[in-house]
């Protein structure tokens, strides 16, 4: 069997898994942005839904090209985030988490009861325009932009706010402005991910963007580690692959997700990709290999 045949077979079976990895990585990165600014927002599933519906409706009802649909899929959630962010981001900690959860639930019910969104039936027959390279390109762009932000003045402001909001404010950092910026960036990424997702699953419904999905997104980011960009990407990849790997366990395979989540929080509180810990492991082994002069 030649490589191309193997590849065709593999791709036919697993292309949705590969697509999902890319989209989930973008979602995990979208929550990473807000977390990097010290905000726990659970609204990203709702923003994903807004982006998915906006893009799908454009593709289905107008002749506009796919990039336009994607752009609107990113812009509309950004606009919504801007509007709800101004009052909501005054809240901190668990209060913000709960308010954003509340917003997500309200979005779900509104989508459930509108005609244009197809109500509980959702939208079917969305044109399958997402190609693998769209996802790779947009994930790459997201990673690049976020890496640039991280090293810029904005990134340092985010970090200052995350460490100590009051100190940051005293240093002259525009806390409210930067929080809003992080919220809007997160919403945009989630919206684009939603738009990409809608265009390869053909069908979307209000249930795809509920609390469980918000939790899934958070899980991927936390599992991978949120101290850098690689963590969320790795977390999304592994947790997307996990159900495939655990297929034999049938009913109990989803429980494995929970077990892994608990174990990671208990034993790897900074996620599996924690550069400092990884460095420590290597420096420890270095010390061990160095002659110490003692015979043990």
């Amino acid at each position, binding site marked *: 069997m030649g490589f191309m045949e193997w590849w065709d077979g593999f791709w036919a079976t697993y292309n949705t898994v590969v697509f999902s990895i890319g989209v989930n990585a973008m979602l995990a990165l979208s929550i990473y942005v807000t977390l990097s600014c010290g905000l*726990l927002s659970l609204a990203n599933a709702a923003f994903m839904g807004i982006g998915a519906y906006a893009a799908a409706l454009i593709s289905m009802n107008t002749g506009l090209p796919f990039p336009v649909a994607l752009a609107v899929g990113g812009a509309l959630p950004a606009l919504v985030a801007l509007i709800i962010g101004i*009052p*909501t981001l*005054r*809240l*901190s*900690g*668990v*209060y913000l*988490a*709960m*308010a954003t*959860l*509340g*917003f997500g*639930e*309200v979005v*779900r*019910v*509104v989508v*459930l*009861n509108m005609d244009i969104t197809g109500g509980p039936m959702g939208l079917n027959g969305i044109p399958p325009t997402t190609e693998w390279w769209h996802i790779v390109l947009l994930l790459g762009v997201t990673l690049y932009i976020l890496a640039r932000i991280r090293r810029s003045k904005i990134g340092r402001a985010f970090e200052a706010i995350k460490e100590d909001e009051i100190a940051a404010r005293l240093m002259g950092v525009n806390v409210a402005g930067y929080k809003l910026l992080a919220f809007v960036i997160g919403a945009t990424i989630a919206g684009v991910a939603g738009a990409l997702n809608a265009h390869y699953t053909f069908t979307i419904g209000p249930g795809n963007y509920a*609390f*469980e999905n918000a*939790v899934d997104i*958070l*899980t991927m980011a*936390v599992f991978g580690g949120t101290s850098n960009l690689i963590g969320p990407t790795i977390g999304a990849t592994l947790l997307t692959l996990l159900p495939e790997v655990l297929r034999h366990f049938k*009913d*109990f395979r*989803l*429980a494995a*997700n*929970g*077990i*892994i*989540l*608990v174990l990671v*929080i*208990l034993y790897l*509180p900074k996620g599996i990709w924690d550069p400092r810990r990884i460095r420590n492991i290597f420096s420890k082994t270095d010390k061990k290999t160095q002659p110490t002069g003692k015979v043990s």
Partner: protein
Amino acid sequence: MLEQQLINALSLGSVYALFALGFTLVFGVLGVINLSHGAIFMLGSYVALMLVEQLALPLWLAMLLAMLASGLIGLIVDYVVLRPLRKRNAPHLAPMIATIGVAIILTNLAQGLFGAENKRFPTGTIPEDSYTFGSVHVTAVQIGIVLVSFVLMLILLGVMRRTQLGRALRAIAESPKAAYLLGINVEGLFYLTSFAAAALGGAAGVLVGLSFNAITPFMGQPMLHKGIAVIILGGMGDIRGAMIAGLFLGFAEVLTVAYLSSDFRDAVGFGLLFLILLVRPSGMFGKVLERKA
């Protein structure tokens, strides 16, 4: 018509309040949002169902044992998951996410053990009597639900306000470190709190199982959403607030369904929550918001 709705609302609201009470107790004392409370609630109703179905126990005994069983599950969750995080002084987010994991495990366990379909109490378990007062129709189950919830709520309130134990718990809620220095067995009371909260959750599970006569592994999730809305509305960690907000949510939902549309039932709680957080970030009955910040 309105009277009838108010009766339905009272019965629904008291279950919400009972559920939220355990939730808010854990937040108040341990400072943890325990997102496995919904799953423990669900297991409580399964335990009662199994005891009635397999051992033909009377309902009241099944309910007591279900409370005990869910209390034990809460204790185990505390010991295995929350205690190590306490020891490490983990940030608030960690226990919240860990309990999401616990909820996933318990829900899938229940699905594996009992199947995903609706289960019902065998016929004859639930008293089918009902009483009519004028135009109002009240079932025995509704009366039982309101009675049991209120008795449990008043017991908890009494313990918290009148006893030495309650005083100790309130001291821990203020500051675990100071309470420890004053010679209070903080760790022990954490376990007791987790046990009591889970037992209250289990009781709510049995009552909901009885009132809808439908038990599924997934019944905890929507209840958890209501519980979150209730404890925020009531002011986090405030027991009286949770009781009032629970009843309030019950009324808001029933009246929405009756006079507006059933479509928006599930958005009522979160819609209220969202609005109230914007206007009054500490909740309707909350006191100072950033005490611990």
